[in-house]
């Protein structure tokens, strides 16, 4: 593996909801063009970690974030133009969200926000993003159908296409396969393997084997803390130091 610079450096990140701590002083780096897997049982702080990366505390008055997150060296907590940050970061959540507009408009949403108006230009982006999300063949004949009426698996791929339409440098995926059938999951996983040549990906997953299949490195979160982070194979083949990680990946709890 090429020596990579960190795309994202997280230092002492603490996330609270009210007085409940969801993430406690986590520090880790995400390297450029890697897939970083994050595994851990429910309520271990995985989702809170992702939410903080896109400054989503601004959506939830109950959520407070402390610590520093450096995006290519720039502290994102100090960025005034949070919209520019969010354009560089694509987000995909467990439950697919097809916006109640046409498939085409769903994918053209972010490009239009970025000021692209020409139909021909948008056509190219829409086709490219839907193709990369492995959805183009299924919807190319009904681009004007409502995105919110596609099946769950299709909506999730639409969500991924939408996340890609903003040309993100960082893609955050939170248990994207929960509402998706196994065949589609495998197709999306293939897509992610392709994408990592251009995009840095953080993949939160409750499927330990999914992290093993996809991630270059994997972090294990437990009870709001980062237990450890290592090359995926090391984490899974037992050269790890921490007994709790071994218990989790071998399915003894969680």
């Amino acid at each position, binding site marked *: 593996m090429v020596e990579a610079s960190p795309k994202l450096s997280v230092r002492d990140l603490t996330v609270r909801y009210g007085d409940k701590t969801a993430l406690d002083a986590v520090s880790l780096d995400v390297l450029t063009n890697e897939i970083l897997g994050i595994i851990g049982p429910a309520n271990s702080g995985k989702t809170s970690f992702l939410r903080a990366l*896109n400054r*989503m505390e*601004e*959506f939830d*008055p109950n959520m407070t974030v402390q610590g520093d997150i450096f995006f290519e060296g720039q502290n994102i907590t100090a960025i005034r133009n949070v*919209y*520019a*940050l*969010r*354009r560089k*970061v*694509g*987000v995909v*959540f467990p*439950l697919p*969200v*097809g*916006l*109640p*507009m046409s498939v085409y408009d769903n994918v053209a*949403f*972010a490009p239009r*926000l970025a000021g692209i108006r020409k139909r021909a230009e948008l056509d190219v982006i829409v086709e490219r993003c839907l193709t990369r999300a492995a959805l183009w063949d299924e919807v190319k004949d009904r681009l004007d159908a*409502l995105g*919110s*009426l596609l099946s769950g698996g299709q909506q999730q791929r639409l*969500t991924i296409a*939408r*996340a890609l339409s*903003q040309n993100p440098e960082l893609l955050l995926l939170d248990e994207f396969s929960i509402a998706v059938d196994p065949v589609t999951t495998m197709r999306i996983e293939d897509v992610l393997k392709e994408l990592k040549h251009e995009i840095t990906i953080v993949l939160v997953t409750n499927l330990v084997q999914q992290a093993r299949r996809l991630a270059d490195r994997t972090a294990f979160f437990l009870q709001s803390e980062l237990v450890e982070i290592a090359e995926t194979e090391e984490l899974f083949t037992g050269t790890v130091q921490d007994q709790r990680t071994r218990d989790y990946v071998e399915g003894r709890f969680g």
Partner: protein
Amino acid sequence: MSMFARTPLDQHNRRIEWLVKTLFLMMTVLLIIPVALIMSILIYRGAPALSLEFLTQVPTNGMTAGGIMTALVGTIWIVTVALIASVPIGVAAAVYLSEYAPDNWLTRAINLAIINLAGVPSIVHALFGLGAFVVFFGFGRSILAASLTLAVMTLPVVIVSTRESLQAVPHAFREACWNMGATRWQTIWRVVLPNSISGILTGVILEVSRTAGETAPIMFTGAAAFLPFLPQGVLDQTMAMSLHLYVVATQVPNVPEALPFGVALVLISMVLVMNAMSIAFRVYLRNKRKW
């Protein structure tokens, strides 16, 4: 005995089920009875008064003959001006409260104030309108003063119904937009408003109905018992259907029996026609957008 035979507990549950269903059905029927009675009495007794002349002529002979044209046009003026004043303010306030306002004591106080404003009796609004718009702002007794009074009175309806229809748009849609770098306003304009427009229209319908029917707030602020001519602008006084009904029903001697019923029938029909148009528009919008 079959394994699906009814146990005594099943029998009991069945009986309760039947009882509840029948009881609630009767309540629903009870609800329809007054509406049906009102409509049938109005049609039965008011229909003889109706004619094209009734709608197109001014009242004559001390309001015991002629038509109701001046009152009809006056009510359209008042409702239109009231809508122009209250819908933009109400929708803007609802959007702010639903999409921007932080959840703090000030927001909660505003919400409480809106609920209380909805509970203020219309006669109190009338006196407020008299003091504020007629006297203080110097609009005199006019369509403008009457409409603004009605606008203040119906604002809570618009705000509450608009806010509720905004809240009915799933929060996940907003987060999806924000995560793509959309501002709050871009999200509101492209996703939230298009998907709540039918609910917002419902509030406007309610407002139209109430505005057209209110009597007390306008009789102090701009509606006249009798005027032989049409208003030429918003600073003129005008006749109005609701006040006209009150006057011919109680204040004028020797009114033909059918006349007040005819006025009431036209007033109700106006409201129903407006409601029907808005409902048709809502259905059209709802069929276009789904999730």
